[in-house]
């Protein structure tokens, strides 16, 4: 794929999504980067901000199969992965037949993922990392591409099960869905309460996404830029000399190497989207927050001081500027 085609497809996807999603350009851009990178996304925001619409629209625009699972405390792993059921054939013989769960889709919307029990949450682990599920003794591959877009509500924490660190680390990005401004709110009302509804067109397919991801991985990275990426990641570790004061004070654990992978790959994609053919430090800084905010684990002192991960990442960016 040519870079121009890459940029055209990305622009087309964003424009098509823009027909239905009002504002949220940064959110759409970040989700698109994650999809091109083949990564999963954790969306955090209040209810009603269009998270589900975004994911459904993506599936439509990219011509991907879509499933939605509303995570609840009584949701069982089999409800997600599928299970064997007893079936009877024409001759009357009974046998177990695997009934695929909603996870067997290109795009899985795990709505309010933090409301499921850790057991169910962990059922997603293998699927997210290996892109396969094992039910009984048989491992079944998931359709390609496979993306998990999970959502969680940051304000209703009672009765929720916070995602474990290992599972958080498997999300390529954690994106915060901002509340729309007055202009966007008016436009949302105008679009959703009218007689006509926007009709989305398919502008790209799974193959296009794969080719875009392959192209992004060819973008050259200079040694100095890679060193900067490494410095960014190491600065999230409180025991490292590169760590700024905020990290030493508020961070319990720093980001894993997956954080570095996310930084570099997302940066490469962003560079192409910006019309460049090399990774720049600016790309790293632009994707640092979504790539690192869920990989920086804060301590109690941070909770007491009302310091969140974004503030810590901002301090890191300031310290490494």
């Amino acid at each position, binding site marked *: 794929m040519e*870079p121009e085609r890459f940029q055209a497809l990305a622009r087309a996807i964003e424009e098509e999504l823009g027909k239905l999603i009002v504002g949220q350009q940064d959110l759409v851009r970040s989700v698109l980067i994650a999809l091109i990178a083949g990564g999963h996304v954790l969306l955090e925001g209040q209810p009603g901000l269009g998270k589900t619409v975004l994911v459904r629209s993506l599936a439509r625009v990219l011509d991907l199969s879509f499933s939605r699972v509303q995570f609840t405390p009584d949701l069982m792993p089999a409800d997600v992965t599928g299970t064997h059921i007893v079936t009877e054939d024409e001759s009357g013989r009974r046998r177990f037949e695997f009934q695929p769960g909603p996870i067997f889709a290109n795009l899985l919307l795990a709505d309010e993922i933090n409301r499921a029990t850790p057991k169910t949450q962990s059922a997603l682990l293998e699927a997210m990392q290996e892109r396969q599920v094992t039910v009984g003794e048989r491992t079944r591959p998931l359709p390609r591409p496979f993306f998990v877009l999970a959502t969680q509500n940051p304000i209703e924490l009672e009765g929720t099960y916070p995602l474990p660190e290992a599972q958080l680390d498997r999300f390529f990005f954690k994106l915060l869905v901002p509340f729309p401004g007055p202009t966007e709110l008016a436009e949302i009302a105008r679009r959703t309460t009218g007689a006509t509804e926007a009709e989305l067109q398919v502008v790209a397919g799974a193959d296009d996404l794969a080719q875009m991801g392959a192209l992004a991985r*060819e*973008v*050259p*990275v*200079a*040694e*100095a*830029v890679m060193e900067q990426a490494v410095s960014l990641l190491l600065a999230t570790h409180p025991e490292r000399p590169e760590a700024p004061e905020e990290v030493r004070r508020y961070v319990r654990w720093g980001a894993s190497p997956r954080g570095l992978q996310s930084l570099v790959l997302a940066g490469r994609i962003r560079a192409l989207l910006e019309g*460049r*053919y*090399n*990774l*720049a*430090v*600016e*790309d790293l800084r632009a994707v640092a927050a979504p790539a690192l905010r869920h990989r920086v684990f804060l301590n109690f002192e941070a909770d007491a001081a009302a310091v969140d991960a974004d503030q810590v990442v901002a301090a890191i960016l300031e310290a490494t500027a």
Partner: protein
Amino acid sequence: MTQIQTLLRKVRYRLVRDRALARGVQGATLAALLALAFELLQRRWPIDPAWPGLVACVGAGLGVGLVGWLRSWPSWEEVARAADRRLGGHERLTTALQFATEGGWIYARQRADAAAFAGRVDLTGLGPTPVPVRWLAVALAATAAAVTLALLPNPALQQLRLQRSFQTAQTQAAGQVDALAKQAAGQARPGENPAQRQALVRQLQQTAQAVRGAPDAQSAVAALSQAQNAIRQLQDPGVAQKKDAAAAAGQQLAQNPQSAAAGRALAGRDLQGGADRLRQLANSLPGTSQQQRQQLAQSLAQAAAAAGGDPGLQQALQQAANALQRGDVQGAQQALQRAAQEVQSTGAQDQFQGDVNQAINGLQQAKQPLEQQGQGQGQGQGQGQGQGQGQGQGQGQGQGQGQGQGQGQGQGQGQGQGQGQGQGQGQGQGTGGNGSGGGSRVKPAGGTEPVYVPGQAQSTDQGVNQGGGPGQGQELVPYGQVLSQYQQQAIQDVGRADIPEQEQQLVQQYFSGLGG
């Protein structure tokens, strides 16, 4: 890549220039700080001359700046990173430089993108050359402080220069005294007292050693003064009297034809020639007539009467006259031979006295550079010791005007006679605040013989020296007649309450040393 290389060259030139300015200012700052430290150390441990040290400081600072500049010479990678950062290249140049030879279409596209950026970029984006204002301020402040210190008087440096000057003067004075000793040793003459000659030579040799070993100018001057005093003990005031007696006898003998030659020589103070003529006269006696002998006896008796200042000569001449009157020619010959010996001895003693005076004058000349050292030290210490001593310095300087006899504490001692003729000489002793001096003046006494008469300067209450003493402007008198008078007046003058007792004692010791 041509456009990229062109851009990188321009950026590198700019970086090198900026760093040259920064390192230059830093080097100058270091140089100024080193110079300031050097000036501060100069106050404690002075170095003279100071300019090599200052040049070394400046050289070291600028050298460090130069080395720092050379070590900061940017590599191409660094230039590319700087260009990306300052021109908004988003690492295009850095990446293109690193993968300049990499194959593959994506690398080619990247290089083309970087080249396009290099072609359109505006170098004004590099911004103005940064001036290290803080370094510059530190450099200027340090330079101002160093210059101020350099311009302010440095007591330690002055002391060092005084010390060096003293050492030079000390070596020179010791050499002069050594030369005097050798000269005195080589001037031994028949008829003189060998013990006195040895004492003179030994005294000069010991003085040379003492001057060499003197710890300061005051000690050296004191050693020379002591030597002068000791050598003065070798002076014999009676020699002049004997010469006068010989001259008077010569005038009587010149009236007799037989003794006219001896008489003219003696009257002309040619003692050696007179002695020779007297011997010739003794040898010629057997060939003379009775009448001539009687006439000669009469002349010898008159000469004996005129030679009262020299009893030996008078006795010999009288014996010769008596022998001739008795007709004892042989006895007369023997008496004339003794008279000739007396005259010859007086001549030798007279020449020895000349040697003594020459040694004293030589010592005085050797003292002059040391006295200047002593005066300088006295002034320096006096300034640091208070107003009372400052007045003392004033006196000392006043005396010094006469002959550089500056004395701290207002107890300098000058030479009245010396000042009168502009030859007064003294010794400055800044540390003790006291001083002693020995003036010299040649006074005709029975001929051309020099007689050294010490004088005493008078001081006012305000510390202004009048440059005069009892002997100034008056007829000079023999040493022994005025010494006690001078001593009494000096003790009376320094006996005031505002002069420390210690200084009074020094004056008393001085006169005691003179034998007063």
